[in-house]
């Protein structure tokens, strides 16, 4: 018998083990929900699978009385749009500032301490200020995402630029590159895939800020819905919405990963097969 740390099991066993916790959790939940519902048919905390699928079918097919829109899709569209715009603005700004700050020491000297301090401010704390500045329209939500993730992205890209071997900058200069050319031909193309992988990391926070902003002031959006229906303890809406958000987050993350692999194969060379 091998030592425990050396036991790996075959492919089949590993797949079975991977599915196991999900099956156990799902089964346990359904059992609890059914039992609670049997005991008290009006309980709302543990909706059964049927209740949830009914509610979701309604939310995914019937138009809302007030707005005439189908809630699930309207919410999804609103949230994804805010997320997309916010993340796009952040990524663009981060690429530019990360590049310039990582590449030009005299820019980095004043900029790097500033961005370090800014990145320490918890964005949630300035949410009241954001509402004052941007109102309760789309701007405030997008601004929260941008303020929330851009400093992190910039610092990461600046760090990545500094980690690129000094040899590359020297080599480029021996090939005749001026400062601008070093930035756009050596640093920029190598920061781009890093931007994608860092954005994947930051998306978790972006979702957080989006939901936080939607929770406090919004007319639509996935976070809006969750915080609106919480007052009826409508777990039959909240739970599927949380699952739906998780699925969306997963899909976006995988899509970015696959795009990055396809376009920037050289960047992923060192990755383990499991990433």
């Amino acid at each position, binding site marked *: 018998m091998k030592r425990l740390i050396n036991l790996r099991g075959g492919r089949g066993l590993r797949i079975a083990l991977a599915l196991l916790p999900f099956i156990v959790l799902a089964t346990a939940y359904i059992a609890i929900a059914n039992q609670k519902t049997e005991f008290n048919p*009006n309980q*709302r*905390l543990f909706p059964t699978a049927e209740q949830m699928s009914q509610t979701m079918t*309604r939310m995914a097919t019937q138009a809302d*009385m*007030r707005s005439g829109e189908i809630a699930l899709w309207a919410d999804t569209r609103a949230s994804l749009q805010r997320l997309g715009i916010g993340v796009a603005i952040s990524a663009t700004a981060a690429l530019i500032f990360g590049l310039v700050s990582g590449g030009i020491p005299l820019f980095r000297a004043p900029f790097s301490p500033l961005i370090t301090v800014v990145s320490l401010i918890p964005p949630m704390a300035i*949410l*009241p*200020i954001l*509402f*004052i*500045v*941007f*109102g*309760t*329209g789309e701007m405030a939500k997008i601004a929260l995402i941008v303020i929330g993730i851009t400093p992190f992205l910039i610092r990461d890209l600046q760090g990545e630029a500094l980690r690129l071997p000094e040899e590359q900058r020297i080599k480029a200069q021996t090939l005749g590159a001026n400062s601008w050319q070093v930035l756009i031909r050596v640093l920029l193309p190598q920061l781009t895939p890093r931007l994608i992988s860092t954005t994947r990391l930051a998306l978790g926070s972006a979702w957080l800020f989006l939901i936080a902003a939607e*929770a*406090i*002031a*919004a*007319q639509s959006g996935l976070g*809006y819905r969750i*915080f*609106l229906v*919480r*007052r*009826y*303890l409508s777990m039959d809406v909240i739970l599927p919405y949380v699952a739906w958000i998780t699925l969306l987050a997963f899909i976006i993350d995988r899509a970015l990963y696959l795009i990055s692999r396809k376009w920037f194969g050289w960047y992923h060379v060192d990755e383990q097969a499991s990433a």
Partner: protein
Amino acid sequence: QHARDDFRIAWSIYVGWMPWAYADSQGVVDKWADKYGIDIDLVQVNDYVESINQYTSGNVDGVTATNMDALTLPAASGVDTTVIILGDYSNGNDGVVLKNARSLKDIRGRQVNLVQYSVSDYLLSRALESVGLSQRDVSPVNTADADIVGAFANPDVTAAVTWNPQLSVISNMPEANMIFSSKQIPREILDLTIVNTDVLKANPDLGKALAGAWYETMAKMAADDPKALSIMAEAAGTDLAGYRKQLAATHLYSDPANAAALMTDPELLDTMKKVARFSFEQGLLGPSAPGPDVIGIRTPAGVYGNRGNIKLRFDPRFTTHVEQAK
């Protein structure tokens, strides 16, 4: 439910509920709880909706709420609820504020920031009704109660419905006007302290202790005790003058006799009927509610709605009990 001896009551910041802040911190509640040999923990919750959620989900045994929210949130969720204290009615403490507008009609087509499906929504409906408009003519933006202030400071936000203390802050902003207020619908927005009926049945002392503490505090307010008022003002994040101004828009029932009288008055049943109808039209009684009368409401004057499903009860006995004790 069986007898217990420790209870939790949630409250949130609103003029009419600040007495609880005083009663809690100055030991009034403890004194009355000790008298009945129980323990009462008052919990402040920063967000109004969350405080009611805590009650509905059973994490606390009682909460401060308006009559409408008591009906549409816990009662509509199947939590049998008893009103033990009718503290005041809003007499200008809830209002519709517009920027650059002379009449309520100007609200047409605007985005309105409010806590959706709350008593603000009710006030908005009553306001729209009064000028022949309806909810379809405006576009609501759900905004947490306290964030309405910040939002209203932004020029793009031009209409809001809220309550005090936020109301007084935003109606003082440049170009802002309070164009409709609860003064115009007196005795319709009632600020209550409600308790889970089952808990109360098993532990009537809870109701007695709460009512006792409440009316002891009310006596200080009636006497205009500056120390008590200052403590309440501070807890509300304002100063004595500011708090006095908010109180002016509140019709406090500092005398238990008056409160008991309103509870037994048939007018209350009428008001609740109106509120139930509005709530039904707004879909607040649940997606499957067949009519405004699904939920039974019992007042000393009678019952409105489904007698087999009574979930909201106005019970003046605790108020009268205090009165008799005096």
